[in-house]
């Protein structure tokens, strides 16, 4: 079963050759953009531009018809007006292509009878021609490992996170945010109106794909809610599935209808469906990427007890207090630390100006040197009553105090600690006036598998999401064992 589906999607995510229909010598045409995107991504297979006027683009000959291409064609990207697509699909069938992606829009999302009936005829032609359709109204496939991308420029590192997105814009944002935040993608897809392959198909594939360990989704609606529900339930029983449902409000739903032709269900029904399916529901791009980032670094359920270190130097008091609130309000535990930890911290930091419970403010270590600071952090992190360590590091405070070299030493310590800690370490690096230095540290920590988030509130929410998923899966596993 899973081998079948992998084989079936091979031409979609690992095409051996790609034709781009709608290319012209004019670089401003949409088809030309797709040719250049594939070239800039470093796609290694043959790229065949197709356009009625011929000529060449990016050093590649433009064929007048897809039938004229000398070699085999796996995957076709279509960027021509919707009125010409039926003829094109006949050509695709004649050429025995395997998958056709339509960048072209102007179908059911226009809410017209002709838009809907055109889609029906496209699906008929695909069935008859033995190929699959992605879209229409979408930007298609992203597979950094195979150097296929929908983005011009940087392509990003391959990784273990897969995504499906009904929207091309959100798919692009997921890819670029991933590049900036150290999220590595196995593959992603924007499927637009999803007239043939839709969310359920891609989710089934990602569940079977050995490269994918975590799955994110942006959905606006579905043509087959039952199937989507059943698929999501199966998928989330094997891999974490994080879903952002767009169009939750009446205004959003109206926009979704003209965006991807999606029908509206009430937001409470969607939330119920996601919960029932065992998926993690998130409410925006930030929460989606935060949660995917954390899943990428936390392979197993770690428990909900958080040790919070709110300040490494000045200003840690209020941050510790509010971090405790943020974690507790969302449903995480911030338990008191052991008596032993308490005694050790008292000795290391002294009582004046410190908060020695949990959250812990270790800022008094600034008067006692790095050994005291590191030992205090390690004591808290190692306490057996916590499962996660959440640390806020204010680069703008630390930089003038310790200089760049000191910052390096501190973060080298975190990386070394992470290596032997045996529990996840989550770092909060709030944006501030020394942005360049902060971004540099973020990349350094991410490279060492320490997820970095921009606020304690966001970190707490993401930790909670990860926990909710693993806890549920553990309960289900327990129930299966008991049965």
């Amino acid at each position, binding site marked *: 079963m899973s081998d079948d589906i992998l084989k079936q999607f091979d031409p979609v995510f690992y095409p051996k050759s790609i034709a781009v229909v709608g290319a012209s010598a004019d670089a401003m045409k949409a088809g030309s953009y797709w040719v250049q995107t594939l070239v800039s991504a470093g796609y290694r297979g043959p790229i065949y531009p197709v356009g009625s006027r011929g000529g060449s683009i990016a050093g590649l000959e433009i064929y007048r018809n897809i039938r004229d291409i000398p070699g085999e064609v796996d995957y076709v990207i279509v960027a021509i007006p919707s009125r010409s697509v039926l003829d094109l699909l006949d050509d695709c069938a004649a050429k025995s292509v395997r998958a056709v992606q339509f960048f072209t829009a102007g179908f059911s999302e226009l809410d017209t009878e002709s838009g809907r009936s055109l889609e029906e005829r496209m699906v008929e032609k695909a069935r008859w021609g033995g190929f699959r359709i992605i879209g229409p109204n979408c930007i298609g496939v992203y597979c950094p490992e195979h150097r296929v991308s929908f983005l011009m420029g940087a392509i990003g590192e391959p990784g273990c996170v897969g995504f499906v997105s009904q929207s091309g814009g959100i798919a692009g944002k997921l890819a670029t945010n991933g590049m900036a935040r150290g999220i590595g993608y196995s593959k992603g897809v924007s499927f637009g109106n999803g007239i043939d392959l839709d969310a359920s198909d891609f989710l089934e594939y990602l569940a079977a794909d050995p490269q994918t360990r975590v799955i994110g989704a942006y959905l606006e609606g*579905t043509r087959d*809610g*039952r199937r989507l529900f059943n698929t999501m339930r199966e998928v989330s029983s094997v891999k974490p599935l994080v879903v952002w449902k767009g169009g939750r409000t009446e205004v959003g739903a109206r926009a979704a209808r003209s965006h991807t032709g999606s029908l*509206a*269900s009430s937001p*409470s*029904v969607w939330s*119920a*469906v996601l919960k*029932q399916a065992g998926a993690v529901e998130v409410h925006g791009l930030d929460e989606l990427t935060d949660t995917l980032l954390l899943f990428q670094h936390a392979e197993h359920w770690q428990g909900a007890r958080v040790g919070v270190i709110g300040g490494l130097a000045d200003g840690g008091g209020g941050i510790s207090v509010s971090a405790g609130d943020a974690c507790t309000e969302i449903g995480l535990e911030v338990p008191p630390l052991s008596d032993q930890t308490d005694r050790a911290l008292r000795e290391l930091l002294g009582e004046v100006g410190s908060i020695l419970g949990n959250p812990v403010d270790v800022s008094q270590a600034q008067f006692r040197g790095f050994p005291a600071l590191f030992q205090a952090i390690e004591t808290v992190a190692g306490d057996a009553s916590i499962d996660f360590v959440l640390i806020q590091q204010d680069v703008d405070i630390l930089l003038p105090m310790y200089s760049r070299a000191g910052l390096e030493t501190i973060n080298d310590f975190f990386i070394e600690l992470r290596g032997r800690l045996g529990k996840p370490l989550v770092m909060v690096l709030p944006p501030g006036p020394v942005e360049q230095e902060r971004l540099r540290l973020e990349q350094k920590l991410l490279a060492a598998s320490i997820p970095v988030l921009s606020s304690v509130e966001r970190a707490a929410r993401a930790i909670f999401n990860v926990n909710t998923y693993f806890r549920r899966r553990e309960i289900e596993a327990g129930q299966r064992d008991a049965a």
Partner: protein
Amino acid sequence: MKTQKVLTEVESKELLAKDGIPVVEARLARNKKEAIAIAREIGFPVVLKIVSPDVVHKTDSGGVRLGLANATRVGRAYSEILSSVRQAYPGARIQGVSVQQMVPPGVEVIVGMSKDVQFGPVLMFGLGGILVEVLKDVSFRIAPVSKRDAGEMIREIKGYPVLDGYRGQEPASVTALEDLIVRVSEFVEKNPQIEELDLNPVFAYPDRAVAVDARIIL
């Protein structure tokens, strides 16, 4: 637009009872004499409710009388119900009144089903009265609902502590409610022609739960 058919309480409860969903049995009386005879069979006190496909708000139109302790009161209530409903809903088709046992008060909850355009039958659970109407404190799951789903639906609502025993009221049986929700889920799956279903209220007791009123729309 498809025309809807609203089943009366008597018809709705008959269908539900056949599938093992606990309801307070309601029997149709076409006249005063029948009402009294049924009341004697069921045992006093009884409740009388108007039976008409055209009357949506039975209580508001004076169509419901509770705690009728003897035959005289049943007879009088019958006439009063008919005259006040005729006033509130002139021209309403009236089949008679339903006679049912006056059950002891329990924690009032509602269980419902409506159809979603994308997901099909969706079950709803909530506490009765103001908590549903004003605070929208309800939970949803799509059918088929497992026992665990039902348990989550019940515990998910903010008002859950009310079921746990509130101000000396006895706690309601979560198990009985889970069972009822699962049976309703099976019922709507088996009968896809049902567009909407309302069990409102359901009385939940320490050992059981029973639908006091019911409405099915085809």
